[in-house]
């Protein structure tokens, strides 16, 4: 066996071996992603152009095996944009898109307002404290997202801890209604997405050259002026990255609006879920997904450009 094996190895040109290995290395992850990432999107696109039907799976037309080229042609000619037309006609959908984008924008502002001072404080802490502070910011990110959202249900409810404290302190006489409103959704988003905002800002603030601040103060700037004229502009790449990292996933968020939001909270991720699981309208759910992706492509491309520019600037 050993001899044969050795013979085989020496028999194959090492260059060919290297190429074979390279082809194997490339094709395995490539094939996996094609099959489980790209093709599924093609299927979503295909089904979004189909009609809902009382069948299993509940859409038509479907490509019948063995129908050949004629079958493909039949399939193509029966596709239409009906679902997309429906999305524009029913105000529920475009309202849900608009309100998702709006909620994401407002959340970005809140997260920035809460996150920037934390990142700033971390960057100014002494060297021995910084790793601990970093870990304290990252640790919640490792604990379950669902549990962190759930923790707020007990706090914000009518009989929740927050109302108990406020009633006890005499600040309010009637319990506040926060749970199942948009306010609760904002709190949940700021809470769960805070690390995504803090970490990139911290990364830029940490590298900041403190001689610049001293120079500014020597030249007569007040501390606040120096902060505004030097620290803020230099931390801009981190702020932009943090804003994108919060905005993009929040637009499609499902867990937070469904646990903390109320009947008035409209978010497209939840609409898609209900359309699929409750109404079982697969073609319509697919159309909702296609439009959501189109909306997100703009910020995703902008984000990637910004990251590239950032990398080039650092090199």
């Amino acid at each position, binding site marked *: 066996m050993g001899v044969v094996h050795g013979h085989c190895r020496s028999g194959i040109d090492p260059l060919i071996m290297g190429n074979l290995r390279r082809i194997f290395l*490339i094709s395995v*992850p490539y094939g996996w992603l094609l099959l489980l990432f790209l093709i599924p999107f093609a299927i979503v696109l295909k089904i979004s152009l189909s009609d809902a039907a009382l069948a299993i799976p509940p859409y038509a037309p479907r490509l019948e095996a063995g129908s050949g080229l004629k079958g493909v042609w039949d399939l193509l000619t029966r596709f239409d944009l009906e679902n997309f037309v429906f999305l524009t006609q029913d105000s529920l959908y475009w309202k849900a898109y608009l309100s998702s984008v709006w909620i994401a924008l407002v959340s970005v502002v809140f997260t920035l307002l809460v996150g920037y*001072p934390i990142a700033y404080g971390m960057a100014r802490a002494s060297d021995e404290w910084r790793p601990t502070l970093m870990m304290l910011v990252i640790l919640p990110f490792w604990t379950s997202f669902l549990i962190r959202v*759930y923790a707020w249900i007990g706090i914000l409810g009518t009989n929740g801890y927050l109302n108990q404290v406020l009633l006890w302190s005499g600040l309010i006489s009637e319990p506040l209604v926060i749970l199942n409103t948009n306010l609760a959704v904002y709190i949940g988003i700021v809470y769960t997405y805070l690390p995504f905002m803090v970490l990139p800002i911290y990364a830029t603030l940490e590298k900041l050259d403190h001689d610049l601040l001293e120079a500014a103060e020597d030249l007569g700037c007040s501390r606040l002026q120096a902060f505004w004229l030097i620290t803020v502009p230099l931390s801009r790449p981190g702020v932009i990255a943090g804003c994108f990292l919060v905005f993009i996933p929040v637009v499609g968020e499902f867990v937070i609006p469904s646990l903390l939001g109320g009947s008035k909270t409209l978010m497209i991720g939840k609409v898609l879920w209900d359309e699929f699981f409750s109404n079982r309208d697969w073609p319509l759910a697919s159309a909702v997904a296609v439009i959501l992706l189109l909306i997100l492509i703009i910020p995703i491309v902008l984000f990637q450009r910004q990251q590239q520019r950032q990398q080039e600037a650092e090199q």
Partner: protein
Amino acid sequence: MRRFTWFNATSLTLGFVFLYLPILILMIYSFNSSKLVTVWAGFSTKWYGELLQNEAFMDAALVTLQVGLISSTIATLLGTMAAYVLVRGGRFMGRTLFSGMIYAPLVVPDVITGLSLLLLFISMGLDRGVTTIVLAHATFSMCYVSVVVSSRLVSFDRSLEEAALDLGCTPFDAFRSVTLPIIAPAVISGWLLAFTLSLDDLVIASFASGPSATTLPMKIFSAVRLGVSPEINALSTILIGIVTVGVVTSSIMTKRAAVRRKRQERAAEAQA
């Protein structure tokens, strides 16, 4: 000169109170003897006992663990390969599409990923259950792994690999004895990330699974929709405890390893 002002101290304190108080309250009330979660009625561990006897939760925990272990291992293998191809692979046909497919799952909303995978599984005629959840989780986790591993591959000195090849190693031996030990910390943290992502995922698992398999997040989600319950608090406390111990130990270990490496480097310098 950095100045740590009162403003910095206050914002850090408030920030960390905001981050940790909700979790802390949740954990404290898991030891509440009352069924009403918001009213304290004395210390008790009875919810932990009830949780352990709740077979539905235990089954879901087993499914989740199984899915997490298998999917994160597949994701680590595929993700490391993908990272190697991206950083060392040079040019090949469809490289742009490949790197696009690596980065896209990081930003595509879960509802879309879940929906598209479900439609794929149905059109392939796969029975939905543990296998399909594993496939789904491995797919999105491999992208995270490859991002973590490729950042390590980019930063390491390629001449070490070349030296090994010059000294007569086969490419595989060079990878095993030079590259792998250097990128090992990144591979391990990639695996850990993939594992926690899998344990954490609700949306994609809900789409990818059938009636035969329920994961823990799915179980928690359906229970939580009905309101707060002390059993869920107990379960959350256990999960948070495990994660905290894991993260703290692994970060202490990496810190120790870094200190040791520095000491060795210094010793080597002193000898030279």
